[in-house]
Every structure is written in C-alpha cells, then in structure tokens.
C-alpha cells in the first residue's frame, strides 16, 4: 500500500513537471535568452544590440538576455547559427543588411526567409558626403558634375560589394553617371579620413560617421537615401524629396529562427515595440550618433524582403562573384 502511494505521487509529480514544460505561457520565465551578435564587440551592430537587450529587459518580465558575439566569416556564421537554433525563443540573433546581399553572391546559405523579425532599431541611410569647398552645393549639381566629368569623381565606400558601394552603384544606375569607386574595406573611418584629407572627392557612408566633420565645417552632406529626413541632420534633404525614389539603408534587426511558436514571437514583438519607443533607448542610440527607427514585426520583414530583391538587382551590375 505504502509503495503504491509513493509510485502514485511520483507519477503525479512527473506529469506535473511535464505539464510545466509544455506551458508556453511561462515564456520567458526563468530561462536565459541567448542573443547571437554576428559582429565583433564594440562595433555599431554590437552596441545597438547590447543597448536593445539592455532596455528590452525592462519590457520583458523575468527575461535575462545574454549577448554572444560570433563574428566569424563576416557574420555569416553567426546568422546561420541563429537560423539553425532551437525554435523555443531562447535563442535569438541579430541579422544585418548583409543578409540581403550575401545570398546573391553565394556567400550565405540563409536568407531573410529563414528568420522571423522582431524589431529593427537601426536603419541608417546612405549619405553623399563631400568636402565643404567642393564645387557642387546640391545633389543635382553633383550629378551634373559627374555627367560632365565621367569617371573622374573618386567616391570612397566601405568595400566592394558592401552596402555603401551598392549605394554608389545605385546612383550610377539611376542617374546614368560613371564614378570611380575607391573601396576602403578596413571600414568607414579611413574613408572619412581620406575625404577630409582631400585624397578622394566624396564618400558614401551613414550620416553619423561624418557628424564630427560636418559640425566642424569640413564636410557637407548633399542628400540622404531615405524616405524621411534623419534626426541628426534635419536640414539635409532626402533623395525622395528631390524626386528620386530609391533608398539604401544599413539595418540591423533582432530576429528569431523561422517556425518559432507564434505566441513567443508575439510576446517578443510586443516587448520590442515598447523598447524601440522607449525614450531612454532612443536617447541611448542618438547619443551614439545613430538615428533610432521603430520598425517592428512584419514591417521589418517587408523591408528585408524589399531590400533582398533590390540589392539582388544592384549586385548584378557589380562584378563580385
């Protein structure tokens, strides 16, 4: 009799344990959520991601986020790892704009379709940055100058086939101009230094990278490739305003692997929505010179899909296979 009751209690306890495991309502109680950042510590993507999860903690009760950097293979390894992770909401990852580019170059086995986006706190537009004493004051004058002097304007970018190079290619394509591309694969900083030092005529980059030099009156921004003006340079016109409707932006998004249960994704999107609209988080990004954007859920998916298609077209014009 005694033995029977012990077995009974044991069975009941086992079942109740299994039941607790089943209850997805509990998410994210008690569990650590790993966030894979496919870039090195200290970079723009890393700082944005760490900021996002730090502020998101307050909007997701009981969740602890643990960032892990996996910068191997230009970030592809990290993104693949996120895509292949368990679909239980305890592994999330950041994906970057390269996800819309690398698949066309056969460099990434995963695409935007392998992820469910949660939020994109950053989508920096490409800006046309020139020395302040350059002979052109507006984008139109720049285009006219380029038409009159084909191939003479040397435009710096952050590496062939990288996002800012695509921005220059998009300009060549849209305006029928010919530029000389000077790649700085070491990153944006050396390319800005080169245009300040007068070694090249212009540089394509995010507006924030040039902020110090623009404020000091050494560089000027002719226009940004966005739908709306940026917060940090409200006086700079957009390409759209000037009548050219295309945008190139470097985004980073927090995503979950595809097939993650809907209620978990909903929970995360709600928390992320509250976070990207949190004034404290916005201030955190602004102080780093990043214009905060509040794109969440399906909107991110649409942006990723649109960019995937557009960048695929642009990359066909660049010989980078």
């Amino acid at each position, binding site marked *: 009799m005694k033995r029977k009751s012990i077995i009974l209690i044991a069975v009941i306890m086992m079942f109740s344990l299994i039941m607790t495991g089943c209850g997805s309502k509990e998410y994210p109680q008690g569990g650590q959520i790993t966030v894979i950042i496919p870039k*090195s*510590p*200290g*970079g723009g993507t*890393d*700082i944005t991601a*760490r900021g996002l999860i*730090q502020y998101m903690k307050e909007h997701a009760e009981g969740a602890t986020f643990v960032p*892990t*950097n*996996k*910068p*191997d*293979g*230009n970030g*592809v*390894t990290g993104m*693949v790892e996120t895509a292949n992770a368990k679909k239980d909401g305890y592994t999330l990852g950041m994906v970057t704009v390269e996800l819309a580019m690398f698949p066309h*170059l056969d*460099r*990434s*086995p995963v695409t935007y379709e392998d992820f469910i986006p949660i939020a994109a706190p950053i989508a920096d537009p490409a800006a046309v940055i020139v020395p302040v004493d350059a002979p052109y004051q507006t984008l139109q004058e720049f285009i006219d100058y380029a038409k009159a002097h084909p191939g003479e304007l*040397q435009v710096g970018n952050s*590496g*062939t*086939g*990288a996002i800012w190079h695509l921005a220059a290619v998009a300009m060549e394509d849209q305006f029928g101009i010919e530029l*000389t*591309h*000077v*790649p*700085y*694969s*070491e990153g944006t*900083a*050396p390319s*800005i*230094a*080169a245009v*300040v*030092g007068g*070694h*090249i005529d212009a540089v394509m980059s995010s507006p924030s990278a040039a*902020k*110090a*030099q623009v*404020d*000091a*009156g*050494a560089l000027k921004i002719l226009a940004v490739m966005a739908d709306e003006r940026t917060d940090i340079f409200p006086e700079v016109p957009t390409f759209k305003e000037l009548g050219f409707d295309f945008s190139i932006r470097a985004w980073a998004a927090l995503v979950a692997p595809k097939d993650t249960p809907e209620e978990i994704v909903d929970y995360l999107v709600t928390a992320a929505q509250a976070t990207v609209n949190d004034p404290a988080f916005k201030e*955190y990004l602004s*102080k*780093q*010179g990043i214009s905060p954007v509040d794109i969440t859920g399906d909107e991110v998916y649409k942006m990723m899909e649109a960019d995937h298609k557009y960048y695929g077209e642009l990359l066909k014009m660049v*010989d*980078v*296979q």
Partner: protein
Amino acid sequence: MENIILAFQNVVTIENVSLILFGTLVGIIVGALPGLSVNMGIALLFPITFAFQGMSGILMLIGIYCGAIYGGSVSAILLNTPGTPASAATTLDGYPMAIKNGEPGRALGISTFSSVFGGLFSAACLMIVSPLLAKVALQFSAPEYFALAIFGISIITSVSSKSIIKGMMGGIFGLLISTIGIDSMTSHLRFTFGSIYLMGGISFVPVLIGLFAFSQALLTVEDAYGEEAVKYNVKLDRVFPSIADLKRIFFTVLRSSFIGTFIGAVPGTGGDIASYISYNEAKRWSKHKNEFGKGAVEGVAAPEAGNNAVSGGAFVPMLTLGIPGDGATAIILGALMVQGIQPGPLLFTEHTSKVYAIFLGLFVANAIMGILGFSSIRLFVKVVNVPKKILIPIIFTLTFVGAFAINNSLIDVFVMVFFGIAGYFLIKFDFSMSAIVIGIILGPLAESNLRRALVMSSGNISIFFTRPISLFFICVSVLSLVAPIISAFIRERRLEVDNFKA
C-alpha cells in the same frame, strides 16, 4: 592653465583614481592572458560606463587601454607568449633575457619603465602637438600607407636572426595567409574552398597564440620530459632598472616613443606594427647589434616603449578629427558620445575641460600602471619557478581558452592547434615566428593600399614616387634591405685590404 587646474580637480578625486586603478588592473590581467584582447576588455566594460556620470567611466576605459598594452609584455617576457599582438616583438629579446640569462626581474623592470615612459611621452605629445600630428596623419593616403607597410615588411630581415632567407620565406608565408578570404578590393573570394569560416579570413589571434604559445609549450614539454625540476637561480636584487641600463636605453626609449606616437596617430595602424618598427630601429642604431635576439636591453625596451606610446597617439585623430586611430579608441569614442561628447574639431573649443580630463587621465593611468607594474614584478617573477608539470598544462589550457574566446569559435581552436604544431616544426628548422606574424599583420595593409593607390592614379605607378612621404619610406625600405648586404661587402673588402697589407 586654468583648464588644466580645473581638469586636475575633476580627475584627481578618490572615485576617479580608484576607477582608473581598477581599469588599469583589469587591463593588465586582460592583456597578460593570451586571447583576451585590448578591444575585448574595453568592449566588455563599456556598458559599465553608463552607470557613471561625466568622465569617470571614460577614465576607467583609458586605464584598461593602457594597462592591457602593458600586460601583454609580462607573458611575452616570462612565457614567450605575447598576451596581445602588440607584444609579439617583445618576445624576441625579453624571453631570452628572462629565462636564458636568468634575469626576469631586469627584463620586467626595463619593460615596465619603457612602457610607462612611452605612455607618458605620447600623452604629452597628445597634449602639446595633437593638432599638428593630426594634420600630418591626414596627409597619409593610400600611397603613404603602402610605403609604410613596405617599410614594415623590410624589417623581416632584421628580426630573423638565424637565417635571412628563412625569414623571408616566413614573411612570404605570412603574406600568403593574409590573402585568404574576401579580396579587399574586388570582393572576390580567394582560397576559401566554399568554407564560410575562411570567407572572413583566418583569424589572426589564434594564429598568433598557436605560433608563439602552443608551439612553445610543445617545445617545453620536449625539454622537460624526464628532467628533474630545476629551480632557476633567479637573480632579483632590484625591480627598478639600473642606472647603467637606463643610460643605455635612453635614446632607444625616446626614439621608440616617438615612433609609437606617430604610428598610433595614423588611423588603421596600431601597437603590433609600432612595436616591430621600434624594435627594428633600435637594432639599426644600436652599438650592440650582436646582442639582439639573445636578450639585448634595447630589444626589450624598444617594442614596449613603442606599443605603449601608441595609446596617446591613437587619441590624436579620435579627439581632433572624430576618427578613431584603432579599435580600442573607436569604442572609447562611443563611450564619449554616450556622455554627450562628440569628439572632432570642435571638441577642443566646446569641451576644453573634458579634453584636459582625458589628457590627465592618460597621465594618471600610465603612472598607476607603473606603480602596479613595479610592485608586482616580484610576484610575476615567481612564474619562472613554477614547476613545468604545473605550468605547461596551464599554458595549454590558456591557449585553448584564448583561441576560443576571441570569436567564440571552435574552428579558431583548430586553427590555433594547426599553427601551433606547424610552429613547433618551423622553430626546429630555425624559421622566425616574428617574420610570419609581420607578414600577416602587414599583408592586408600593403595589398589594399597598393591597389587603392593604383585606382586613384588610374594605374600610374609614379604615384608612389612623386609624393614625398611615400618616397621617403620607400627609400628607407630599400636602404634597410640593401644595407646588410653592402656592409658585409665592405667588411670583406676591408678584410682583403688588411690581408694584403699584412
């Protein structure tokens, strides 16, 4: 002057000094452990800076930055394992002095003195001539970078003491390794064989740990096998360098500090390059060339003064132009912006007191680094007498942990082991590890700037010879390549003449 006094009052508070102390201590530990890089240390403590008002958090980061560059030399000298890439050159003479000559205290004393001197010198340069330095740094375009890289590569002949031919073979091996991955100009894939890992190139730090630490540990296993534990008779009567040593290294340290500050000020180059160039110049100008590689005092002093002087230099473009000089200053730039300070040309007029706080922070951090360094030398030296059967497993563990920690990648661990075993045999065949490392460090700099310069000049090679800075470096490189051959020739002639006379 008023600003300096104001900044002094702001910086020298108990809270700030203890934060700098904490940062410097963390930095020295992070720097001494191979695989934990300067940037990683700063990036990991970066979020903590949000908690502090004003400059306090920034001062802590400055402490980590200075401490980590110094910390790398401790393991370089005692274990022949550079804690950071910036200390790879220190192994050349530091390890022989500490172990073969049995003078670890002397080696650490000299490296500590040189590091502190380099750091203080560069902080003074930053304070006095940063606008001027920034202007010179901006003159550097692709041809100048290329010429600087070539100058650096020409050093290979002088760091490979045993055989110049094998040194060059090693250098070319290093250059070849650096071509793996995405072509920096055209973005085409090179030698990646469909592997995603190879697409990003072979990570440098695992290679460094393999070549220096893992191979060294293998050699030690071989030496120690079946051997009774010998207690080294370590002479440690002083931790401060002797007057005679100080006299001998004075010009070397000064020269290296200047080189380090300048190289730090040029964006995209850092402590690894500065220390090798400083070492080479020390050897070029030394009266005791034959001592190099066997524990020359100048050989320990030069790379350490050079790499620590990078810290002040790297702040020059960051503060004056808003363009970071290296990865570490890029993160500190982010931290400054969080505090609402935008570095750039306007910084000096808008936030003068904060600029001076950074200057003073660098001075204080270097001073604390010296105090911590000198007072721990007796402790560090104990490592030498740790029995090998205890020390070797610890080193092996550190190599694995370090290789993994840098990118959280298991492939990096395999790469480390591969290069460790390769390094073991290469050392047996008298190849120079430093030559390979110089090839890997300078390969990308040379290649992308060569090709970028040619894009800029539409393929005209004259761009390298018509620009004064570029021409200067190319001439010096040719001279340093040819000089050993010519001097050997002259010596021979003189000998012949002498024989003839006799």
